[in-house]
């Protein structure tokens, strides 16, 4: 890998390639810098979502019963299946990165397309769930908002739950949509044959982003769908 990338041109200057740009000493250093940069970005994302998780915790602590009843109105089976779909997409994503490590171009494309497929299914199911909320009048701010099993003075607290539900799942879905855009671009690049075993950093780094979005959902699922299910509706 190193010999290949640090080829020296006849006049002594190193040839700048994708796998070794001028400002780096070795291909390894370049890759480590990209990985570190992505992780720093992901940490800002952790803090971004962290604020929402903090708001969620404060209000769940304030209105535990209302949150339990509101949470039980969500369909947890659909939620669990969708979690499975997203985990599958993470698996195909890591397989795409593995194909990159092995330099198997066709496999990179195949696994990226599979990841896009599962990501699309997840978003489709999410859209179906949101639509259901509209039909059930569970949209915060709606004049017709009504959650069964709650007194009129508790309806506002239930709206708080659904505000958090839409803000958190919406922000998560936005990240998914951006991820789908990135992966589509990578698939197109991979088709042009840009990636090889010595250079697949964009696939690797996009993988980190995709898994991060998966991790956010891993926490959203139990926190939104599974609060005190045993209380029933």
């Amino acid at each position, binding site marked *: 890998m190193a010999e290949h990338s640090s080829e020296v041109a006849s006049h002594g200057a190193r040839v700048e390639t994708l796998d070794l740009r001028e400002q780096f000493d070795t291909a390894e250093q370049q890759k480590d810098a990209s990985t570190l940069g992505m992780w720093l970005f992901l940490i800002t994302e952790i*803090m971004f979502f962290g604020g929402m998780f903090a708001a969620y915790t404060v209000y769940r602590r304030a209105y535990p019963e209302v949150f339990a009843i509101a949470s039980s109105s969500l369909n947890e089976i659909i939620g669990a299946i969708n979690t499975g779909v997203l985990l599958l997409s993470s698996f195909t994503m890591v397989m795409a990165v593995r194909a990159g*490590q*092995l330099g198997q171009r066709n496999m990179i494309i195949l696994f990226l397309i599979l990841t896009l497929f599962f990501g699309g299914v997840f978003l489709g199911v999410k859209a179906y769930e949101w639509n259901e909320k509209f039909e059930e009048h569970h949209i915060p701010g709606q004049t017709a908002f009504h959650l069964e099993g709650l007194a009129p003075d508790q309806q506002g607290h239930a709206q708080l739950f659904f505000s958090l539900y839409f803000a958190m799942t919406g922000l998560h879905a936005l990240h998914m949509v951006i991820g789908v855009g990135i992966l589509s671009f990578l698939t197109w690049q991979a088709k042009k044959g840009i990636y090889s075993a010595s250079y697949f950093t964009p696939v690797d780094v996009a993988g980190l982003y995709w898994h991060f979005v998966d991790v956010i959902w891993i926490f959203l699922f139990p926190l939104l769908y599974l609060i005190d299910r045993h209380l029933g509706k």
Partner: protein
Amino acid sequence: MTEHIDSVKTYVGILIALLMLTALTTAVARVNLEAFSVVVALGIATTKMLLVALFFMHIRHSNQLTKLVVLGGLLWLGILLVLTLSDFATRGWIGVPGK
């Protein structure tokens, strides 16, 4: 660094573990564990997060600097949550005159 390539078997194993934990957390939510419900739910979620981070995000094979940065990020998240909640949890402790 020679790039560490995990086997397909490892990844399939992790995927199966993640799917089983999802089924487990969904099933256990129907059981009345009182205050421990949320502990169990978050415990399972944290386990899943660790599996994804260590294996799928390759933290296992990352260099020390990346590991330190990730831990630092979690530390800041901890500060955000602990300080926010310590405020809300203790507001009622001191009687405020006139309130």
